[in-house]
Structure formats: structure tokens, C-alpha cells
């Protein structure tokens, strides 16, 4: 081994134990003053350690039959089809997985044209052969056995003609998928009612149908360690920050695992703080929501076999928004958002505030109310903390069982829950009626949060706050609140602060709690680092007498300036 290699190996070995000081404390940020954190990954796993070097495709039919059969364990795998066709210009070998290919399409688009060709081998050129397969749209030339394995695994028909050291991978796959249905967790009253399915092409159709522009990119992310084209990164060229696209591509390409089962699984690999209780992205099943975020400068990731899109970067406020906010008139949308914000606060703090008031600061509430609470608690032998914990657990059991139970006996859960929680526990003296009221309001508030993952996060936080309140009263809640707020301000979703534009404060962005009038929302969120900040034209309602005349003037001014600007650019 040369001296240079020795040094390199030593450096790589050192990286296992010592953190490079230049990378300490650096996180990805959209700020222009911060460069992305670039650390070379040294511990990459080889997908096929037995065959490190790629082997050329053999020319003879017998050799390729043998090589492919051993590669795919054809004798143990009845699903694997290996056909040899005799033609006037030599033998043709066809390999594919029966389960992934439409047999009729193979017959019409591949076998029929190839067999019907009447030519001598000497006259046949590779280009002629390729031109024969016009019925199939995707043809890829393959020159190594390893690449052929990747193509066949990805569901393509592999065609080899005797005498050529090159082969073709032809797309003739089935599109087995369920039909497009209504969303399950993001339902709306007004608005579109379609949702993503497991088939990626259908999903891309649903998106492209809504955004028919050439700048809408659906980039397949190549991951050499697994079957290709499993992941797609979606963004809008000219809008989304290139730094953001590059960073997401880098994070996706770094994934090196056997299989990713769903977008929820992928989330852990690409998010900055996977240990956090909050998700730093939005997993949505709605195409309209995906498009809306793409137009605001986010990146979406879709996966074959997963009926969801992962949107990043997002903010906490966008997790509190619902697509419906934009489909209703603005006062209704704003009111719904305010209600949701109150619901979020109630869902996190109400039980803990109750504990703090009852156990530590009864002087706060009116004497009559305090006496009423005390009389209700008279028969209960447990402390308030245990009462709350008991009911929380009961609610969680009901929720979990309602998810698992077959639909036929689903209503039973409601009846059992109502009897146990509504009546029996009070009569048995386990909890006081007021705690039931508190918990019922809390649970209802929790379910009014539109993003389902956030509902789960809130549940965990609620328990933590209950613990803080039962230990230190209001002071405990304050400490917990500060820790929570600090955690939230420190979170970033793909380089964008999670509480933007509230913290750090960016006064220009309006779409947080109050839903602005759509025709006044001219700019995209500035904190997303978008290339094109203008979302819509300045003058949206020229016919309206209330539109200030200054806007008309400004519009005509910019219109008259434009040709002059163009001329200047040409010069």
C-alpha cells in the first residue's frame, strides 16, 4: 500500500473517534452567512459485497442465462421468468418478474416486434433493434450485469440479443393500485376530496393536474444501494431556494438502509432533531396542500408505495393551518385558526392548571367555586394528579382500542367508554366529576388540531406538564413553559426556524393566525429564502372602486418601465 493510502486510512480511522472541530455546532441554515455543514461520510455500506466490481454483459446467450439465473436464484424463485426466443438473427433472452410485469404488454410491446423482424444477424444494428420497441416508452441501455439486476428488480423487462454486449431494460409494468379516494385524516367540508395513493404516477398526475407548469420538477433520487427511483423530490425551479433543494437531495442520498417502508419512516432520516417530540415536517395526503407548500418555497418528498408527501421546511403555524382555512371566507378561516390556537393551549395546559390551582393556589379562584370543587372531591381518596392520570390512561385506552377494533363492533367502544368514564368512575369515587369535565374539554381540544402528529405530541407534553404542576404548582408550569418555548425556538425545519415568522420576528409575513385576504397576499414567506418573492400581481381587483388609485398608478408605471428594462438588459 502506498504512503498516500496509509495517510488517508489513518485520517479516516481518526474520524471515527475525533469530531472535526471545524464542524462543531454547525447546523444547516438558509442564512447566506452560514455554509452548509459538509462532512465526508466514510462508513458507507456496500450493497453487494461479494461482487464489488461490475461485470460486463456476456455476448453468448448461454452465458447470460447462467449469470442472470444465478444472480436471481431462478431455480428457487418461480416468480422470475426467463424466456429464450429463437429468431432469424439469433437467440433473444428475456428476463423479468412476473408479478411486476403486465404479460400482455410484454407480448405486444416486446416479443411481437422482436420476433416479427426478419433480418440476418450481420445486417442488424443496435439502433434498429431499439427502434423496433416503439410501444414501450422507457428503454434504457444496460452494459453490466449489476445494472441489469437493478433494472429487473425495479420491475423492467430485460432484453438481451445474442451477439451484443449490451442489453435493453424496457418498461412494461403493471399499475396495480387502489383508486383515488377521499383523505382519511385531513378531511375538509369545502375543497378537493382526492388524496394520494400508493402508486407514484397517480400521485404525480394529481399534482401536475393542479400545477401545470414546466418548472414543477419531480426529481427521482438515485440511491445505488436499493432499488432505484423509490424516492422523488418535488420542487419548483425558480421559486424554491437552490440551497434548500441541494440540502434535501444530500440528506436523501445519504440514506443507506435495506428498505424504507413509508414517509413516516423517512422523516427520521432527514429531520434535524429526530429526538424532538415535534415533527419538523408535514406529512400530508392532500395534493392541494402539497401544491400550496411547494408554491411557498417548500420541498416535497414522495415515495413509491406510500400515500403521503413529506413537506419541508414548515413552521409550527402551518401545522395548525388547514387547507379549509383558504376555502372559506377570511373571517371564518381566521376564527377557525384562533379556535385551534386556543385548543392547542387548552390541550397542553388545562389539566396542569387545574392541578396547580386546586393543590397549590386555591386562593386564586372565587370562594364559592373553590368550595364546590372541594365538595366534589370530598369522596375521592386519591390526589388530583392520580385522578388526572387515571382518566388520561382511560382515554388513551379508548383511543387505541377504537383504532384497532373491527368496524363492525366500533360503536361498542363508545358505549363502554361513556359508561365507564361518564358514570361508573364518579359513582365509585375514583375521580371527581369536575376532573371529567376538565379532561373531556382537553381531549376534545386535542382532536381539533388539524395535524394528527401534533395531536400526539401534545398528549405527551400534557403529561409532562401535569407532572410539573403536581410538583411545583404554577412555578412548575412556568419552568415547563420556558423549557418548551426554548425547545420550540431552537427547532429548525430544514434550516428554517420552526416558529418563523414569530421568532425570529419577521413582521412582513402575515399568514400566521389571521388569515389575510387572498388578493392581498402578494409575497411568498420571506423566511423560506425563495428566489421569486412575488406570489401574485399587484393589482388583483382593478374593477373595485375601493382599490386605491396609487396601485393603478404603480401598475401602469411598472408596465411602462418593463420594456425599458428589457432593452437595458439586452445592451
Amino acid at each position: 500500500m502506498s504512503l498516500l493510502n496509509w495517510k488517508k486510512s489513518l485520517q479516516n480511522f481518526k474520524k471515527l473517534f475525533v469530531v472535526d472541530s471545524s464542524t462543531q455546532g454547525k447546523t444547516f441554515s438558509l442564512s447566506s452567512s452560514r455554509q452548509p455543514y459538509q462532512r465526508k461520510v466514510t462508513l458507507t455500506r456496500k450493497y453487494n459485497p461479494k461482487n464489488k466490481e461490475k461485470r460486463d454483459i456476456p455476448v453468448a446467450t448461454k452465458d447470460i442465462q447462467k449469470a442472470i439465473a444465478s444472480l436471481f436464484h431462478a431455480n428457487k424463485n418461480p416468480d422470475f421468468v426467463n424466456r429464450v426466443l429463437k429468431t432469424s438473427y439469433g437467440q433473444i433472452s428475456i428476463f423479468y418478474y412476473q408479478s411486476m410485469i403486465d404479460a400482455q404488454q410484454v407480448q405486444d410491446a416486446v416479443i411481437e416486434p422482436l420476433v416479427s423482424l426478419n433480418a440476418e444477424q450481420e445486417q442488424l444494428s443496435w439502433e434498429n433493434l431499439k427502434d423496433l420497441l416503439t410501444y414501450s416508452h422507457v428503454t434504457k441501455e444496460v452494459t453490466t450485469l449489476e445494472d441489469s439486476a437493478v433494472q429487473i428488480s425495479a420491475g423492467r423487462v430485460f432484453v438481451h440479443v445474442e451477439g451484443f454486449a449490451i442489453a435493453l431494460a424496457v418498461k412494461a409494468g403493471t399499475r396495480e393500485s387502489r383508486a383515488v379516494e377521499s383523505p382519511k385524516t385531513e378531511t375538509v367540508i369545502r375543497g378537493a376530496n382526492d388524496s394520494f395513493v400508493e402508486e407514484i404516477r397517480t400521485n404525480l398526475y394529481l399534482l401536475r393536474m393542479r400545477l401545470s407548469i414546466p418548472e414543477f420538477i419531480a426529481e427521482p433520487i438515485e440511491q445505488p444501494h436499493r432499488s432505484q427511483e423509490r424516492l422523488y423530490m418535488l420542487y419548483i425551479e425558480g421559486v424554491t431556494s437552490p440551497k434548500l433543494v441541494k440540502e434535501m437531495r444530500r440528506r436523501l442520498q445519504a440514506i443507506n438502509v435495506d428498505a424504507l417502508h413509508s414517509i413516516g419512516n423517512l422523516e427520521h432520516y432527514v429531520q434535524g432533531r429526530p429526538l424532538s417530540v415535534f415533527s419538523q415536517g408535514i406529512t400530508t395526503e392532500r395534493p392541494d396542500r402539497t401544491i400550496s407548500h411547494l408554491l411557498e418555497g417548500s420541498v416535497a418528498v414522495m415515495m413509491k408505495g406510500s400515500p403521503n408527501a413529506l413537506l419541508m421546511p414548515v413552521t409550527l403555524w402551518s401545522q395548525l393551518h388547514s387547507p379549509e382555512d383558504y376555502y372559506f371566507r377570511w373571517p371564518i378561516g381566521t376564527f377557525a385558526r384562533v379556535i385551534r390556537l386556543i385548543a392547542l393551549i387548552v390541550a397542553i395546559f388545562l389539566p396542569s392548571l387545574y392541578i396547580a390551582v386546586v393543590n397549590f393556589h386555591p386562593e386564586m379562584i372565587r370562594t364559592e367555586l373553590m368550595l364546590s370543587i372541594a365538595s366534589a372531591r370530598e369522596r375521592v381518596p386519591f390526589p388530583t394528579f392520580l385522578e388526572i392520570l387515571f382518566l388520561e390512561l382511560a382515554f388513551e385506552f379508548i383511543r387505541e382500542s377504537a383504532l384497532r377494533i373491527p368496524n363492525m363492533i366500533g360503536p361498542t367502544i363508545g358505549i363502554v367508554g361513556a359508561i365507564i368514564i361518564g358514570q361508573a368512575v364518579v359513582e365509585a369515587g375514583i375521580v371527581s366529576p369536575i376532573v371529567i369535565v376538565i379532561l373531556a374539554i382537553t381531549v376534545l381540544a386535542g382532536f381539533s388540531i388539524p395535524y394528527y402528529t401534533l395531536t400526539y405530541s401534545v398528549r405527551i407534553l400534557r403529561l409532562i406538564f401535569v407532572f410539573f404542576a403536581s410538583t411545583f404548582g404554577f412555578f412548575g408550569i412556568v419552568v415547563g413553559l420556558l423549557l418548551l418555548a426554548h425547545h420550540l425556538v431552537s427547532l429548525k425545519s430544514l434550516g428554517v426556524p420552526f416558529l418563523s415568522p414569530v421568532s425570529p420576528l419577521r413582521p412582513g409575513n402575515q399568514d400566521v393566525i389571521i388569515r389575510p385576504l387572498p388578493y392581498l397576499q402578494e409575497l411568498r414567506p420571506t423566511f423560506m429564502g425563495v428566489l421569486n418573492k412575488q406570489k401574485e400581481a399587484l393589482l388583483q381587483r382593478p374593477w373595485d372602486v375601493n382599490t386605491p388609485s396609487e396601485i393603478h398608478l404603480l401598475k401602469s408605471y411598472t408596465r411602462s418601465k418593463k420594456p425599458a428594462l428589457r432593452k437595458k438588459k439586452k445592451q
Partner: protein
Amino acid sequence: MKIRKKDGVIGSFEAFCLCNYLIYTKMFLAMPRHLIEEAGPIAWAVPILVLIFSLLFFYILTNLLQRFEDLSFLEIIGELWGSSMQWIIGVLFAFLFLVITAYQLRIIGEFLLSTLLPQTPLSAVLFIMVATFVYLAYFGIENLARLAGLLFPWLLVAFVVTFLLAVGRGEFYNFSPWLGYGEWRLFVSTVNHIGIYKEILLLAFIAPLFRKHQTLRRTGFTSLIFVAFFFFFAMAIYIYVFPVHTGSELGFPLFQLTRLVYYGAFLQRIDPLFMFVWASISIVGMATGLYVSALSLAQGAKASDYRPFLFPLAVILLAIAFYHESSMEAVKNYRLFPAYIAIPFFGIPILAWLWALLFHRQRRQRQ
């Protein structure tokens, strides 16, 4: 050094909020009582008079920082007087910030026990507070400042509303005699409390994190004026509600003020709610104190990171907080030392500025 622009920048609003928290913490302790004891009914004027001096001092400080742009205060000291002095002054300021924070911690802990948590041991309260400080300080000034900025508007509204609710019980003649115990007593009181806004020096430690020197200058001046106004506002309401003799005998003055509020309809008393304001400002303020202490030590020693200093400093912080046997002893000492502590806080920067003005340019020319 850890503190560099590559590690992030601090916004003007966030830094402003952080300074407010750090300076204002002392107002929730016994300070209003001490002011009213010394200056009488004109105690509200003391924060305004101190402000005049503090503005002058901050002007000198920014002048010094402007001469050495992109350097923090301790790096400037190193540049002027060498590494050894940088280390000594770094240790000195770390100690001073730590002592201030420790005293505040002890008094606030005692206050919590006497008002809200009578059955909780002092150690439990102090431990949870110090653990919170370490957590908040560990993630750096950027997040701490953002936290301060996030809470600031809410706390401000709650603070003002609470005080205005207490106004109904006031009496305007409590302000008389209008000049209190006389001009001389007012002057002495002003000198005794000259260090009310000394924590503004924080900005000098984090100076490289500002995008422009102008931002730092604007932040400092705005913070001083704003915080002085709220010192004045709280003192004025306190004197308006409590006559001088009552006001100079109350344990935790501003808290007593909120205890007067009777809201009526649903809530009877709102003093535990005021605790949200008071505890939030104090905890963030003291966490900043611990952060500056660790940062000062790291900058003095030219260490690459301040974080390893946090935990040992937290242990020392607790040790100092537990040093006094009783709450009264801690309050008594806390009253005495701000006047002395102000000497290094103002003296060293002014000395450094004079040095830079007189000698540094000459040395550079010689080079």
C-alpha cells in the same frame, strides 16, 4: 473562540429583550423597597437619574467597541493589555456575574417558599431553577435571545395590565413631599444605585454576533431607555399605592402590589398569575447571567467553547446561593454590594476606552 458570526447572528429585537430581562430581574426582588427607604417619595426619579449616567457610559462603551469591530470586550482587553489581563478580567467578570446571579437565585428561591410553595424545601426549588438555567444557556445565546423575544410582548402586556389594575387603590398625595428627603439624599441614593443598568455590558461580550455596529448601538440605547421607563413606571405605581412608610417595610414589593388586585368575576386574586411574568423574566434573566459568566470565562481563557464551563459554574452558583444562613442575610448583602460591583463594571471599560484613545493608536502607528 466560539463566539463568531459563523455561529449565528443575534437580532436587534431579541438582544433588546434579553437586556431587558437581565436588567429587570432585580426589580422583582427587594430593590423598590431599598429605593423608597433611601430616597423617599421621589424614589421614582432615581432610575431616571441613573439612566443619564448609564447612557453616557454606554456611549463610551460603543465607542470602544467601534474601534475594534468584530472583537468582543475581552478580546479588546487582550488586544490592549495582553493575554494575561484578558484572562484575569475574564475570570473577574465571570465571578461578578455569577455572584449577582447566585444572590438573585437565593432571594427568589426564598420568595417562592414564603409566598407560593411553603411546604417545598429550598434545595428543590434552587436545583430545578439551576437545571433550567443550564439547559437554557447550553443551547447558546441565539436561542436564549429568541426565547426572550418570543415571550416579551406577552409578559409586557401582563405586567402593565397587572400594575394598572392595582392603580385603583392608590393615592396621589403619596408622592408628597415632592422632593422626598431632599436633593442630597436623592443624589446619595442615585450614587448607591448607580449600577442598576450595569448588565448592559452583556452587549459588549456578544458584540461580534451583531451584523452591524449600528445595530448594537441602537439596541443598547433603546434597551436602557425602555428598561429605565419600566423601572420608573413600577416605582411610580408602587409609591402611588403604598405610602413611604408602608412601602419601606414590605418583603417583596412588586408582589405585594399584585396581591391588592381583586378581579372579582371569576378569579379572586391574580398574584399567582403575576408569578408567570415574574418567574419567566427572572429565569431567563438569570440564565443569561450564567451564560455571560461562562462566556466570560471562555473568552478570558481563549477557550473554543463556553459550554464545558456551564456545569461547574452551576455548581458554584448553587454553593454561593446556599452560603447565607437566612433569607434576610442574603437580602442585606445583596443590597450592599451593587454599589461596589459597579466599580469594575464601569471602571474597566472606561479605562480600556481611555487606553485605546491615548496609547493604542500610537502603538499601531509605530508598528
